[in-house]
């Protein structure tokens, strides 16, 4: 298991995910609540893209399970959505890394739309278009989050 030695900074990954969870919970004004970006998913996507050997399907599933518990939804929904998104990221991470940022952001918008499908089906909220708002805000914020997490990764030498 000498290969494990190559990886370090797992604590930093956990800290960024906990901060993302806090951002998911911090109270927002009523009309902004529906536009809350998917902070946790964005953080997971970044780490899976940058360090696919560290953050994988199982990691994403566990974080998703905690999100299910925090949000009080039925267990397993967020868990599987996150696992599925990270699966796609791992499949295509080599291509995604080559994309310009705006193109990455658009791919991520598609993924957030996928994540929102179970919520829409479960609550039968087909009529309310603002279920899909987080996809838009996530897309807009992706370049900033990407730059920030890359800086974090380089500063703390997470690998």
């Amino acid at each position: 298991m000498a290969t494990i030695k190559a990886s370090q900074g797992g604590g930093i990954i956990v800290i960024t995910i906990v901060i993302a969870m806090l951002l998911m919970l911090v109270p927002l004004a009523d009309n902004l609540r529906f536009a809350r970006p998917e902070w946790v998913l964005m953080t997971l996507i970044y780490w899976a893209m940058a360090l696919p050997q560290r953050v994988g399907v199982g990691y994403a599933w566990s974080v998703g399970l905690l999100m299910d518990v925090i949000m009080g939804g039925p267990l397993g929904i967020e868990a599987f959505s996150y696992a599925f998104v990270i699966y796609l990221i791992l499949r295509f991470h080599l291509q995604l890394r080559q994309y310009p940022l705006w193109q990455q952001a658009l791919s991520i918008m598609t993924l957030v739309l996928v994540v929102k499908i179970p919520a829409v089906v479960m609550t039968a909220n087909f009529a309310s278009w603002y279920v899909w708002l987080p996809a838009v805000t996530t897309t807009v914020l992706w370049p900033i989050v990407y730059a920030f997490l890359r800086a974090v990764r380089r500063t703390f030498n997470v690998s």
Partner: protein
Amino acid sequence: MEHNIKPLFAHLPSLNARLLLALVASLVLFFLDTRLNYFSPTRSALSTIVYPIQVIASFPSDASEWISDFFQNRDQLKEKNMALEATNLLNNVRLQKLQNLERENTRLRELLGSSFRLTERVLVAELLSIDLDPFSQQVVLNKGLNDGVFNGQPVLDAHGVMGQITEVTSFSSRAMLLTDPSHGLPVQINRNGLRAVAIGRGLGEPLQLEHLAHNADVRVGDVLVTSGLGGRFPVGYPVGTVIAIYFPQGKAFADIAVKPAAELDTSREVLLVLHTEKQKTKNELISTEDLH
């Protein structure tokens, strides 16, 4: 680094296999959680882990509230104090009357040979100021198992019924509000005792009274109170007021909208009613005795 990683991958199941594993695990969890309610111990254990995150998330707005309290000026406080004194006086007057009525009620019930307690013991809890999924109507409270909170416990605020506890951990609990689409509450109309079930419709919408016929005696402005049927909620707490009645053509039942009495989105302090099993069975005995 690449050649370091590759042998590590060879030992792990393939990506597809891992996704399949995640799918199976999720489906099993989902089934056990929603259908069998099997996972509540696991769920509350996990909730205890994430409780610190929830507390930290609620800190900024708690702190800002504290700071604004601290810097409130003297005039504002004086004004508020005067207003509070006025309501206090009014409440005291009402309370005197209520005490009289309570005594009279108990005396009359004693004459009937039944025991009945009008006062339930309550526990005060505070909401954590965090945002949950905007599409489900839930709140997190800062009291848990250690304070005697239990599953299904009624939650009230100063104005009426708010909802009930759905999940308890050692330090916190989660309550489902009346307005959640999966919440139904047995109610009766205060004016004539007509019974119905008030169903939530989510997202700040009014409650709906289900299965009342077109000719049911309901009027706009009727006050609804809990009926105590179903055994979860104590009898007689205000639930809401009827604000609109429609009679859709070709449908068997009227469409009745009820505005909740509780201030669901502004209350910070809530009351948890300690309403014991023993008392409930007593009440049931009374009702059967009354029939004879």
